[in-house]
């Protein structure tokens, strides 16, 4: 009777386990296999570990469950009196050691491959900034070097539930990192402020971006597509809003994209190099001011003191220009004023500084993009 009852229990339990396996939609529940050789290997390691854990779990928990069903006082059993057994204790020390050694071998192989960052065909610097990523395609010729900021574009309306959320909620950026497929790419990871962590699950790439350090990662992507990840190191209040989006494209498409970007960069290079009239600076400056400054310092320049100081007729905007340039380039630590040296180009910085010094009744001197460019180069 009891035995039959016990059997029923075991059958019910095994049915429950197998049905949950059948129903599980693994893709949404499990690690992503990804699109690189390394990411597939990592996925393989993960699954080996998972099944090893499942087997250990089934053995241990199975023994416990059988024991709980059979060895109960209510069944009238008498407790056994054994309390050690050297053979079995040695066995269950040695067997796990063997399992661990076997597991360590493929893990070591994969890790060694991941650390081999030689022979790369191109270098991209990835710089974490609060709360965006800056990508620089390194090039020996500075006029051909392209660099841009990639920030999340999910609107506040969606975050604050005032608008329906899009499919890639929190995972859309203005400028994606574009890379060619079938190319061995080295990423140089660093940070401009606090520690971030750059993670692309589909490439099995994750490395902390640490100020003062440059870490290396490498990958070869086989399949074109858009791959999304997140910052994975707490980096302040907007840590959750710092997506990583990488678009892998065919080599020729990449080449075309690169040319376009370089033409753009060269245009900036040219623009920065020329002599600007005050009028040009003011037009450009107003546009930049509204985009980058007005949310704090307000359209009328009067700010919201004390948090956001007024720029009208007082302070840095009418003081020595060196201090004004310094705060725009480097920000003010401990305040909301951030560094714009990486976010705006030299022309934009010169224009916005000039605009601030010559608007709202301010009458201070202007600055040329070329001067800002030289300062940025010296940094």
């Amino acid at each position: 009777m009891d035995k039959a009852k016990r059997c029923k229990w075991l059958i019910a339990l095994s049915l429950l386990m197998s049905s949950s396996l059948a129903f599980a939609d693994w893709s949404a529940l499990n690690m992503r296999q990804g699109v690189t050789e390394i990411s597939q290997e990592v996925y393989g390691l993960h699954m080996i570990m998972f099944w090893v854990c499942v087997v250990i779990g089934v053995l241990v928990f199975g023994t416990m469950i059988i024991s709980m069903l059979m060895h109960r006082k209510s069944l009238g059993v008498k407790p056994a009196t054994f309390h050690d057994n050297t053979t079995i204790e040695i066995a269950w020390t040695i067997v796990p050691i063997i399992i661990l050694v076997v597991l360590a071998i493929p893990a070591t192989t994969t890790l060694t491959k991941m650390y081999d960052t030689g022979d790369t065909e191109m270098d991209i610097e990835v710089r974490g900034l609060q709360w965006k990523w800056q990508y620089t395609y390194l090039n020996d010729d500075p006029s051909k070097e392209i660099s841009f900021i990639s920030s999340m574009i999910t609107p506040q309306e969606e975050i604050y539930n005032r608008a329906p959320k899009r499919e890639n909620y929190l995972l859309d950026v203005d400028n994606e990192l574009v890379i060619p497929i079938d190319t061995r790419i080295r990423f140089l990871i660093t940070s401009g402020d606090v520690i971030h962590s750059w993670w692309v699950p589909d490439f099995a790439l994750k490395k902390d971006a640490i100020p003062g350090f440059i870490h290396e990662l490498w990958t070869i992507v086989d399949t074109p597509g858009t791959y999304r990840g997140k910052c994975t190191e707490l980096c302040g209040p907007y840590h959750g809003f710092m997506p990583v989006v990488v678009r892998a494209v065919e080599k020729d498409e990449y080449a075309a994209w690169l040319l376009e970007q370089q033409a753009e960069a060269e245009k900036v290079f040219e623009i920065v190099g020329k002599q600007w009239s005050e009028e040009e600076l003011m037009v450009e400056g107003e546009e930049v001011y509204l985009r980058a400054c007005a949310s704090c310092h307000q359209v009328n320049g009067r700010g919201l003191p004390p948090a956001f100081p007024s720029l009208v007729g007082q302070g840095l905007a009418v003081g020595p220009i060196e201090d004004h340039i310094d705060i725009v380039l480097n920000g003010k630590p401990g305040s909301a004023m951030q560094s714009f040296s990486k976010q705006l180009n030299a022309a934009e910085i010169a224009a916005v500084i000039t605009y601030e010094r010559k608007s709202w009744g301010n009458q201070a001197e202007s600055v040329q993009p070329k001067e800002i460019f030289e300062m940025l180069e010296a940094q």
Partner: protein
Amino acid sequence: MSAVIEEHHHDDHHHGPAKGIMRWVFTTNHKDIGTLYLWFSFAMFLLGGSFALVIRAELFQPGLQIVEPEFFNQMTTMHGLIMVFGAVMPAFVGLANWLVPMMIGAPDMALPRMNNYSFWILPFAFTMLASTLLMEGGGPNFGWTFYAPLSTEQGPPSTTFFIFAVHLMGISSIMGSINVIVTILNLRAPGLTLMQMPLFVWTWLITAFLLIAVMPVLAGVVTMMLMDIHFGTAFFNAGGGGDPVLFQHVFWFFGHPEVYIMILPAFGVVSAIIPTFARKRLFGYASMVYATSSIAFLSFIVWAHHMFTVGMPLAGELYFMYATMLIAIPTGVKVFNWVATMWQGAMTFETPMLFAIAFVILFTIGGLSGLMLAIGPADFQYHDTYFVVAHFHYVLVPGSVFSIMAAVYYWLPKWTGNMYDEALGKLHFWLSFVGINVLFFPQHFVGLAGMPRRVPDYNLQFADYNMVSSVGAFLFGFSQLLFLFIVIKCVRGGVKATDQVWEGAHGLEWTIPSPAPYHTFTTPPDLKDISEAHG
């Protein structure tokens, strides 16, 4: 209650507890101090738990509904700090205070006045820590691991109070550990050798050494932070020649042994409870002692497995991976020993046993996910995701916290003289067991699928499991009010407990009356009368 005790124990008549609040302020009695620690830790458990519920309420749905990201970060930080330093650690110190002298036949802790100090530091430390939430700029918002430079360069002004609170907790823990070590090494009943001590005493002895070794390291790292913030040093500031990664090395040199500080006493508790309710001696006592010592030793040499993504050289990465994998061996030995203790016993399933069995199963799940995390290449995918959150909550909540609850149910009849309400106890167990699994199991999935930890908002694919997880959190959280009710009910009355309380219980604490008199073992017990000092 005390009148009854005094009738039975005329010797104690002149040394009963003082009356009123001053009893608790000036007490040097290990039982009173144990009680203080336990109530304090329960209060902190509810406070830290309420912070967790804020977190889970915000994560119930995607989008920002309840709190702003800035406050969300304060909640994750304070939840971690309060639970680790305020709930779990003091609860184990409370258990040590109550039980160690009774288990080794000592009249009290060796240093009773220091015992009083080490408790009374805590309410001040945690009042200060909790009050930072009300200060200008808010409380600490950089995670309980307070990585520099986020904490040193961008922390709120209240960071200084946080540092001072950590110093106070460290002083309290160090004093408490000195007391435990001195008591165990000097005050054992004549003839009670180290290898005859109950495993709870053993695990606490080892834990106390870990505490003395690593709390000064924590004090050091927060002092370096203090210097960076206020005195212009640059220990952790790359711009000044410092090293942000140094912070993590020092922090985790404290932090990893800290993890074992929170689990070794739990091993001791479970090793006391399972033999009692299996009515069978603990399997492999000696190997349990050696396994605990091995785990303690390994805890000092694996710290950087928390830092696989900081860019260590390959050799370092491999070393920390191998060393971490080794921990599975002594931990496995412990689990196998518990299972072997249950095997062919004659088990009954009172509330302490239910919590202890749940501990073995759920802690093992946490241990297995820990083994997965040890594998460096795979860790790159798991690191700082909810998979890690699920892992360490499995070892800490159904691990440490369940063991504390098991201990309370197990020894409460000895402490109060009354049996707790068994039906309510079982109800509390099942609510907690279901709640905790609904809460943390889905977090494995969202973590693997790519949800980072410490985020106030997440993309839509994680919505379902987060909702399930939040439901589990509220179920588990509110179930603890039932625990409070059961304990109060038991303190106030109930079926009288016998001296042995549990049919299968062995050990010195079960030879004294229930409730335990205010002073016990004022003359050392004669061990010849007690068949088996360790269960």
